[in-house]
């Protein structure tokens, strides 16, 4: 039963993560953390972190990770297949329609309309990660000044560097990991 739930969850993640990249993130949080409690918020944050450091799409990485936690190798294969299945059907249908009709303007128009919602969802999931990182808990504390100084400092500096110098995110992530080890072991 758990396998079926896993499969169905990742079919939904695959079907509704529109706009690529981080669009899957809020859906994974909703399915794996909030609805099914397969992951804690910390594990979710970890898989987002690992995804950023390893090759492959976030959705596939998460499918493998969640599947493995729930039902071992078989779970990771089932979740991955579920995640890829909607893409398969829809891409092939669109490709077929493209060779047939050579026009995608309505779909592209719809996507442009969907974009603000996708950005808002990514922003919301990103906000959850910032709170977890800076306050060490899922929700904002009553006293907003109770920040964990070191992650907050790393966050601010990393963001400033990303905005100003536009480096490779992998390099930023690696530096942040190193800064974490050095600063947290000293203080």
């Amino acid at each position, binding site marked *: 039963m758990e396998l079926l739930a896993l499969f169905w969850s990742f079919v939904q993640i695959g079907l509704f993560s529109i706009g690529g990249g981080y669009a899957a993130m809020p859906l994974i949080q909703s399915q794996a953390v909030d609805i099914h409690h397969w992951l804690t918020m910390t594990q979710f944050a970890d898989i987002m972190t690992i995804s950023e450091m390893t090759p492959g799409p*976030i959705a596939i990485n998460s499918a493998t990770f969640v599947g493995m936690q729930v039902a071992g190798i078989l779970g990771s294969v089932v979740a991955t297949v579920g995640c890829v299945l909607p893409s398969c059907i829809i891409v092939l249908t669109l490709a077929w329609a493209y060779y047939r009709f050579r026009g995608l303007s*309505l779909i592209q128009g719809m996507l442009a309309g969907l974009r603000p919602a996708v*950005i*808002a969802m990514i922003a919301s999931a990103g906000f959850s990660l910032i709170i977890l990182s800076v306050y060490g808990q899922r929700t904002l504390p009553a006293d907003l000044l109770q920040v964990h100084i070191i992650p907050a400092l790393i966050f601010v500096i990393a963001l400033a560097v990303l905005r100003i110098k536009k480096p490779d995110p992998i390099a930023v992530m690696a530096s942040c990991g190193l800064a974490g080890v050095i600063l947290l072991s000293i203080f």
Partner: protein
Amino acid sequence: MEHSQTPHKDTAHSKEDGLYLTLFTSTFKISACTFGGGFVIIPLLRKKFVDELHWIEEDEMLDLTAIAQSSPGAIAVNASIVIGYHVAGIPGALISILGTVLPPLIIISVISRFYAVFRDNAYVSMAMEGMLAGVAAVITDVVWNMGSDVVRTKNPVRIVMLILSFIAVRYLKLNIILLILLCGTIGAAETVMRQRAEKERGW
């Protein structure tokens, strides 16, 4: 320039030995070396399939990219499906999905197996804490870029949708699948109305 009406499944390549193998190894290698998701993988696929192998025409690649980006799911997977299909039909699509999905599947399975042990290590935990701050910064940067693109369109409907969607997801805890369906419908309706208005102005 003449377009082919169907994917190249009946052309000479499918008879070449090792077409499937090349498709598999190409997508496998590209997927294994691609950090940072879909927008990075498309230029690499282009370099391989358009510039090196000459299996796809330059302007067809643009359309295939549009299909990959218009479909739900990971862009890297979608791009592989559409390229595999173009090169060798449905079997080609299945093979390139396999090539694309296997590297992350293998890597994350291994990491996942050792995750519990790793996570209890004090230094790993410190590195994860630092990297979490980094991920938060990377995502903030992405949202900043995408959000300012929307603001720059000066389309009031989109800006209001951005703000309302954020409030709906964050504070009203609206189901995000419902939100996508709702906004997709609004987006489609807006497009149809705008196209109709443009057509009328044209007459």
